[in-house]
């Protein structure tokens, strides 16, 4: 197979991780119509969580489970403090509220860990996949993203609690009438979204060096991926992430890395303008 496919394969693998981050964002939007602007800051928290777990002797992949649990608890906490009081207010208010959470997280992070880069330094093997060399970290990150997504789908479609989440997403009032405690479900959904963001951050931290500000890039990638797939649509978000990764991989040999962001944002704005419900059409 031609050389050109190597970066594309890399792009596909990292794209699955972007997809995971985007699912976290899109799930929250789908369930409660809140665009979580603390998403990037939470991704950065995931990076630091796995870093500190690793420093205290826990293998990064084992650390993922702990990171997910922390993310769930943190998400519920953020929801109760910052989102719940204004959940029925104008969208401006929830945007600003989640943004203020992001400012607090990034501010505390900067004060504690400065903005210099960190690195989760664990042994990585190179593997041979269909004649291409990929690092084991990248492969595991992609597999973990797929596994978590599968797990999420099993939860949403095979359990009663998952059914309740979908019911609240569909129509909160009707769900209330069916005896579903919608506030608790919203808190849970926010927690899951946050956990997914932290997980994706943790996975990214096993691949690249990072700072407390790194989350911003991945937040924007999550936005691009989720609008590609249609805001509120988890499957779409995963595909959006993969498309994004593939684009990155495909253009990598031809242009300077610093231009990829420009291309992504242009795609982002164009998609918002011409396909506001995503490439796959329809709403949720």
């Amino acid at each position, binding site marked *: 197979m031609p050389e050109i496919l190597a970066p594309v394969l890399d792009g596909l693998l990292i794209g699955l991780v972007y997809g995971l981050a985007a699912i976290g964002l899109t799930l929250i939007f789908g369930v409660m119509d809140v*665009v979580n602007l603390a998403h990037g800051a939470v991704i950065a928290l995931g990076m630091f969580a796995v870093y500190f777990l690793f420093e205290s002797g826990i293998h990064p992949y084992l650390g993922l489970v702990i990171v997910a649990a922390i993310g769930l608890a943190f998400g519920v906490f953020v929801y109760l403090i910052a989102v719940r009081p204004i959940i029925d207010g104008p969208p401006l208010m929830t945007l600003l509220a989640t*943004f203020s959470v992001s400012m607090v997280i990034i*501010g505390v992070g900067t004060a504690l860990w400065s903005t210099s880069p960190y690195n989760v330094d664990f042994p990585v093997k190179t593997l041979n996949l269909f004649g291409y060399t990929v690092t084991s970290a990248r492969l595991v990150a992609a597999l973990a993203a797929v596994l978590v997504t599968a797990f999420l789908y099993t939860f949403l479609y095979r359990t009663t609690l998952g059914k309740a989440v979908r019911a609240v997403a569909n129509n909160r009032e009707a769900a209330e009438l069916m005896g579903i405690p919608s506030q608790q479900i919203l808190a849970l959904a926010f927690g899951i979204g946050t956990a997914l963001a932290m997980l994706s951050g943790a996975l990214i931290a096993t691949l690249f060096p990072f700072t407390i500000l790194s989350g911003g890039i991945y937040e924007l990638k999550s*936005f691009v991926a989720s609008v590609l797939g249609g805001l509120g649509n988890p499957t779409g978000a995963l595909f959006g992430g993969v498309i994004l990764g593939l684009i990155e991989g495909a253009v990598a040999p031809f242009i300077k890395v610093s231009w990829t962001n420009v291309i992504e944002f242009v795609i982002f704005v164009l998609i*918002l303008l011409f396909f506001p419900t995503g490439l796959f059409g329809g709403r949720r």
Partner: protein
Amino acid sequence: MKLLSRPFFWLIVAVTFLYALLPYLGQNITLRETLVLSAIYIILAANLNLMIGYTGYVNFGSIVFFGLGGYLTLWLIASHHWGLYPAVLFAGLVTSLLAFLLGIGVLRLRGAYFALATIGINEAVKDFVANFEPWGGAEGIFLPFTAFKAMGGPAKALWTVYLLIILVMGLSLLLTYLVKRSKFGLGLFAIREDEDAAMVLGVKAPLYKTLAYSLSAFLPAVAGGLYFFKNGSVIPDEAFNLHLSIEAIVMVMLGGQGTVTGSAVGAFLYERLRGLLLTLPGLSNFHLVIAGALLLLIILFAPGGLMGWLYRVWPRLRRVLE
């Protein structure tokens, strides 16, 4: 409207003169540098208020106008030997025109979608400029020393630019006041309350929104040109600093969205607060945390900001302070 008989108009004039004269009379450079930052904040907040407060559209990337104005101005001066005045005016007009064209597209989006797009625009422009060689890429543009010579040497030029920035501040307040009292402004407020209903009532919502967006770009772009001229250089990270446009939102919310006084007072207080936090030992790293916490508290407990609270306590104030 008889502008000259309005006390609020004279209040704006008085504040502008106060800002201009306080440091100038004593030739106090420290005070000037404090007030210039405060004036820039007021300019950003007042113009952002046109979008957030009047029209109800959250523009997270309003700083893109400021940065573009700075870049255009410095580029015209450094590479094409323009004078400062034509350069800032041209930069303001071009930025405003770009905002108009962009607005035609982007303002078809509502609520969260629009807000996301504005972040995307700022980041895209920043990354574009950082890669754009004619504008110096990541190193930015440096002004040659001769640029100041044309204005009677650096010391004199800095005072002139200071007075110009204060003028732009006064104009920003006047502009937002005039818009608020005009039929155009009423149309914007109608869009904020209910865009569909406003359209049914005959408000040309797409045109009005786009005009508001374009209008909110002009004076920040001019201010950006003046500010970066004063600095003598411009780099992408400073020109398109997303944090500053978020801080501008905090200022508008702090003072009270939709009010002229609120945006100015919010910006003034925020600058004071920020200065205080930066100088207090141990707290200098926490100014972002405190700004964030402050924003959250305002949203949760006082969505009307300072002016909303004052109006409630003292309803007659509504007639004097816009």
